[in-house]
């Protein structure tokens, strides 16, 4: 692991922008201290939002962590402090990217322009597709086709011969607002989602349900559409132990380091929807000679975001475990507690935070310069 001495004799001072009470910040702080760094300065998102920005010293190495799971931060970003509400994605995106842009100075482990892409599934899809990363076909890639509601959705599905599709809020995360949609002749339809409607408002529930009534599905899509929707072909996923499986692959400094297999009875594999961690050895065995290709694709996806130290790639194994496609790339995809790195990877034996700390020096050496702090500019 890199020691604090690896920075040209100057001790790097770590800073984290996050929600101080959140376990993400705690876990990173613990890992940093254990690795010989001084305890990171924690800059709360709440302060950033209230003050309209934050300043970092030229030698501060700045990590951004998720602004989620904080009612007041949520209220400022999304306009609601109810964490189960689905709406507000567009507002969240505008305010979050603005908040990121209000951070000044320091050496950054992210890139504001890349974050803006990572939190827009339509933009992210286009970046990946243009780089030759296998992705499910999408008519809304890069915002190509407008998706203003149910009528647009059905037209796009028809036009692109896409009877099964995933509909995702452009700025959502953790399956929030996601609908897996199947259609067939004779008006047959089935939507699988965790979204509940109550009093005209949308909530994420912990329960996946099926909708077969077109009117109900249409109302749901129409309610989600104003925040932006992304449409992707539904690739039949591989199974493992009788459950649908996909992979979360953390890529740190260009290398796939940590892999979690997620399995579910449902088309969505998120843990809060009843998904479970699957058996990595079984997944590797199922993929067989295709396994290195799976990791290579994740690294290829991460390479689209060279200014970001670590991304979590959601990789879909197609039925049979021979082909793969990237479903999403997550900027804050490193919350994988107690998981150690792949044998043979640079992160073997390290958790996701230790692996990033070990890769800091190399990343900083190549990081693009950032807008200097106001202080710095004033001194010039």
């Amino acid at each position, binding site marked *: 692991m890199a020691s604090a001495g690896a920075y040209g004799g100057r001790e790097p001072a770590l800073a984290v922008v996050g929600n101080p009470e959140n376990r993400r910040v705690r876990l990173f702080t613990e890992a940093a201290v254990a690795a010989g760094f001084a305890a990171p300065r924690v800059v709360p998102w709440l302060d950033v939002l209230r003050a309209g920005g934050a300043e970092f010293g030229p030698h501060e190495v700045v990590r951004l962590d998720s602004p989620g799971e904080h009612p007041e931060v949520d209220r400022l970003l999304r306009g609601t402090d109810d964490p189960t509400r689905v709406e507000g994605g567009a507002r969240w995106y505008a305010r979050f990217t603005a908040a990121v842009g209000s951070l000044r100075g320091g050496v950054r482990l992210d890139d504001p322009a890349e974050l803006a892409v990572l939190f827009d599934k339509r933009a992210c899809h286009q970046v990946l597709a243009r780089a030759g990363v296998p992705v499910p076909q999408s008519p809304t890639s890069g915002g190509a086709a407008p998706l203003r509601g149910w009528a647009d959705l059905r037209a796009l599905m028809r036009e692109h*011969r*896409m*009877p*099964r599709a995933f509909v995702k809020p452009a700025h959502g995360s953790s399956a929030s607002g996601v609908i897996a949609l*199947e259609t*067939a*002749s004779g008006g*047959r339809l*089935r939507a699988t989602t965790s979204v509940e409607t109550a009093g005209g408002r949308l909530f994420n529930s912990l329960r996946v349900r*099926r909708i077969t009534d077109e009117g109900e599905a249409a109302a749901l899509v129409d309610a989600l559409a104003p925040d932006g929707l992304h449409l992707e*072909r*539904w690739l*039949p*996923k*591989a*199974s493992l*132990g*009788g*459950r*649908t499986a996909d992979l979360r692959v953390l890529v740190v400094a260009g290398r796939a380091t940590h892999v979690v297999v997620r399995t579910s*009875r*449902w*088309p969505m594999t998120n843990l809060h929807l009843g998904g479970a961690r699957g058996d990595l050895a079984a997944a590797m065995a199922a993929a067989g000679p295709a396994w290195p290709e799976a990791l290579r694709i994740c690294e290829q996806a991460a390479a689209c975001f060279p200014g970001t130290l670590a991304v979590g790639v959601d990789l879909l194994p197609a*039925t*049979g475990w*021979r082909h793969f496609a990237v479903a999403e790339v997550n900027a804050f995809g490193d919350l994988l507690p107690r998981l150690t790195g792949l044998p043979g990877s640079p992160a073997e034996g390290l958790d996701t935070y230790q692996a990033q700390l070990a890769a800091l020096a190399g990343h900083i050496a190549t990081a693009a310069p950032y807008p200097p702090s106001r202080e710095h500019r004033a001194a010039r």
Partner: protein
Amino acid sequence: MTLTHDHLTEYGGLPVVEWFSAKDEEKNGPPTAGGVAWRISADAYESDETWAGAFARFAAAVDLTQVEALIVGAWPDMYESGPDEVVETLLGAREHLTSLRSLFVADVVFEQCEISWIVQGDLTPLLAAFPGLERFGLRGGNSLVFPPVRHEKLRELVVQSGGIPAEAVRGIAASDFPALTTLDLWLGTSDYGGDCDVADLAPFLAGTRLPALRHLALHNSEIQDEVAAAVAAAPVVARLETLDLSMGVLTDEGAAALLGGQPLTHLTSLDLHHNYIGAEVAERLREALEPAGVALDLDRDDAEEDNGDGTVWRYVAVGE
């Protein structure tokens, strides 16, 4: 409710090997023949290849006369149209498939096509065309028809479905399978076309058309209690080695009928997993059967009651 189930990994005692898709064939080189159960698939959605096309590539590369087990995976648009092309293709290859002993149609999981959306059809021409077949199975009950047949060699018949139409159940029941040792029917629910009633099962329970039957599974049924009650008094039970009433809506009522019926202590196993049996009745079942050496599976699995609007909802294991 469970939506998924795995692909077959073994069939007819042979490990299942997926036949290469067109784009993988070059990468993998020519296949090794024999000793495996081949699964041949197109894509259910947006397929680039017909099922006949996939089979033609298979037939060109593998000595069909050596093939003992075939598994039909997905065929194009299987949620819209039945396996006519599959049936025609296999009928066309009958003179070459001389060693075929095991055949399964529609081994797909819900990510490919959900079980209640699989459109089946009449597969019995395959039974007529392959008199040497010993094992036959299929998944999906939609549009399934099964006119009565006679087959001298068939030892195992499996129908996995969220609902087998009553007419198909009656057709199977009116068939003669003198060699059949294993019958496994996922009866399903009326929501998904499984509309048989317990009287339709009477021929199985009498067993006269199934003189060799040793393993009986009448399960995944919304009328599992009634099925259990009928089984409790069924003549066929005395010669069974295993009985499977799992995956359905089996409650204390059905379990009590089993306890009050003929002795089941001669069974090697009684599978009741996924059930709604209370602790007290479950204990009575254990006391009655386990000392006699019956392997009893009472795992409730994911059988969960829903209480809504004053109504208790109970589900079979596989519906949608």
